[in-house]
């Protein structure tokens, strides 16, 4: 880690977000810098190269997950930051906020089994030319936990405007029906919008798999990809 500029991640806090501290800790544990961004902030600070919308229950997930958070003042700054090419990653609730706000296409609905699911799953990167996957070794699945009740991705009518970034798979990397925990179309676990690779959303929590003591450090690849993309 010596000799190169330490990149800074901006971690947004909405009322009800509850993975902000976990994300902050994971980023720092991997040697990068982190800053909290409060939901009423007007702009993204200059030194922030990547904004993360972390997991949680913004506004209690009342009405629909992410439905209310999309109106927070900081979302104008995030949208403008994304339009300028800034990197934006929405994790779980953050992904829900990005689709609700239209920054990403499609929608996230209630899991087919109608229950909250918290467990380790395997996901297979679908492309390696993005800021969030460019450092990931090809051909092997990542073991990263999910924890959600509204994680079933649907294209709606915008299939052509969507590009799979991660798909649920089994231990050996096969994308099968059994490996799909929530009924997402095409086993989608994360997406980017084509032609705009700097904005991505994923349901699994990389910050919960950034240190081996938690059972897996496959999540670190995503943060390392951001570092490689920026350097």
């Amino acid at each position: 880690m010596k000799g190169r500029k330490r990149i800074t991640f901006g971690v947004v806090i909405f009322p009800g977000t509850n993975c902000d501290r976990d994300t902050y800790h994971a980023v720092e544990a991997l040697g990068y810098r982190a800053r909290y961004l409060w939901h009423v902030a007007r702009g993204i600070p200059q030194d922030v190269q990547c904004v993360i919308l972390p997991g949680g229950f913004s506004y209690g997930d009342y009405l629909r997950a992410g439905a209310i958070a999309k109106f927070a003042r900081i979302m104008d700054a995030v949208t403008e930051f994304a339009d300028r090419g800034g990197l934006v990653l929405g994790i779980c609730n953050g992904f829900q906020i990005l689709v609700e706000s239209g920054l990403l296409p499609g929608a996230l609905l209630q899991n087919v089994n109608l229950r909250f699911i918290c467990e380790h799953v395997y996901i297979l990167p679908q492309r390696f030319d993005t800021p969030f996957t460019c450092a990931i070794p090809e051909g092997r699945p990542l073991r990263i936990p999910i924890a959600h009740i509204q994680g079933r991705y649907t294209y709606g009518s915008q299939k052509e405007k969507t590009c799979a970034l991660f798909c649920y798979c089994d231990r050996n990397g096969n994308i099968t029906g059994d490996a799909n925990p929530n009924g997402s179309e095409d086993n989608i676990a994360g997406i980017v919008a084509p032609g705009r690779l700097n904005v991505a959303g994923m349901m699994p929590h990389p910050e919960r798999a950034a240190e081996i003591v938690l059972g897996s450090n496959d999540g670190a690849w995503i943060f390392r990809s951001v570092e490689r993309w920026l350097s």
Partner: protein
Amino acid sequence: MAQKDINPRHKALCKALAMKEEEYWRLVRLLGREPTETELGMTAALWSEHCSYKSSRLHLRKFPRKSWRVLAGPGENAGAVDIGDGYAVVFKMESHNHPSFIEPFHGAATGVGGILRDIFAMGARPVALLDSLRFGNLDNSRMKYLVDGVVSGIAFYGNCVGVPTIGGETDFDPSYNGNILVNVMCVGVVKHERIQSARAEGPGNPVIYVGSKTGRDGIGGATMASEEFSDETEEKRPSVQIGDPFTEKLLIEACLEAYEKDLVVAVQDMGAAGLTSSSSEMAAKGGVGIELDLDRVPLREKGMNAVEIMISESQERMLIIGRKGEERRLIRLFKKWGLDAVVVGRVTDSGKIVVKHKGRVVADMPASILVDDAPLYRRPVKEPSYLHELREFDVFSLPEPRDLKNVFEKLLAWPGIASRQWVYRQYDHMVGTDTVVLPGSDAAVLRVKGIKQALGVTSDCTPRYCYLDPFTGGMQAVAEAARNLACVGAKPIGITDCLNFGNPEKPEVMWQFVKSIEGMSKALRYFQIPVVSGNVSFYNENEALGAAVHPTPTVGMVGIVEDVNKIVPAWFTEEEHAIILLGSPGEQLGGSLYLKVVHNLVAGEPPEVDLKAEKALQRTLRELLSRCLVSAVHDVSDGGLAIALAECSVASSDAVGFSVEV
């Protein structure tokens, strides 16, 4: 005061709030006059069994409470125990049995909300939840409805608040058919200098109400918990409590920020008996008085009278004593988090609770009457007649089963043994990124960021043993909890408990209660583990059976793990490894799961607890782990050796089995 008849309005209020006539006259004697209606409502709530522990206080004193690590013990919002490097662990367990029977989803959810508030009222950030659930038989749709409601209620609240549910127990026994048990434990971590006090101080300091608005939630909730289940409690149903985990999350962050900025003199959760218990307990502990103006209390419903406002149990509310002149800073902080924060009164030096409503003084009484002068009952005890004959039962007179494989499968399929993954998969047990040993092992382990040592946490009890011999059952609950911690290399440093028993006015129940406490105390003294907090839940009766539930003294134990990296799984990891049984197998079948599942019997002598051998076993386990001599450790408990070996095979993600010669 000649004991003539109580005036009719007071008589009706006493009945509605389950206050006995002799308790009414005690209040008149202490006051030197008749109480006002508000004073009567406040006293009835605080003198209830749930708040005053009037039938149990005498016996709870038998528990050991001291150790060099204890920073705060029973009587505080929660227990606090030093864990080194300037940090302390805060923990407590509470029961929400009766509300969960009326409405399982919100009953269980508000149980989680309440215990969380006791933890962050001590200044600690809540880092883990455990739930100990006991249901009846699953063969009726009402019980399935209760199970589904309780589990999804705990998931709804815990997941949204972002505190991981990492352990607990889920068991099924016909004794709980008419009265389920929902015990929830919370663990928090705090730096010593941030531990908050519950003692109101500084006459003139503002009394600040923070959190959700007040409604008619749970009116009489405090007294409902002291009521047996019968038609009488039917009409109290509409006052059920609804939980709002989103507001609770804001409350946690706002309070922790207020402590960080040193804006808080004292704080307490508005739990059972709401505004009354929080104001009078803080005043009595600080030896001061508190003046309240109910016109300033944010209300959710119109036309609430003073009694309703004072004893309402609306959720997600805290009472804070601020510093004179700094009210605005505190209020601005809570507004930043989108929360109501209103000055509703002042601290005085009168030692009295004075309540004004619509310009009139509706209550003016010493806080000590409410908090310290509750009645203290020395209830009669009598060994139950059924016990002698039941314990004499010769277990070996039963025919030996011909088909052992069938017995083995029956035990494995028993819902209290079969994998409970269907339960904890619905809980976010990873948020906080501190859970290093996930649910499903003997105990859960949480790392504490910034320091090397970690926390082992478990909750245990075997009600069948306590039913047959409460003394041995109490000892066994403590011993098994300590053994489960040893399996993850944790050395116990303290316990909390939830003592669930029947109607204390029945001598047999009181005998069970006293014996359980004495058994627990003996084991706690031997292992030198203090009790730092806890809860008593009486009146857990089963109308259909006409009997109390099995005595269930749930023990929640916390220990310190010196080195997280030396913990081994609770399942087989590699082939060819030898399987070693530590401790004597013994031939006791009394009170065993085998008897209950195969012969539908709870009888015989429960296994006796050899404390000396138990202590040696636990020390050996910790030594084996610290010297990395073993690849897996698992406790042998319900279902015995066969089930323990099966669990070690099933839980492993690789296909491993075992072969043993008995």
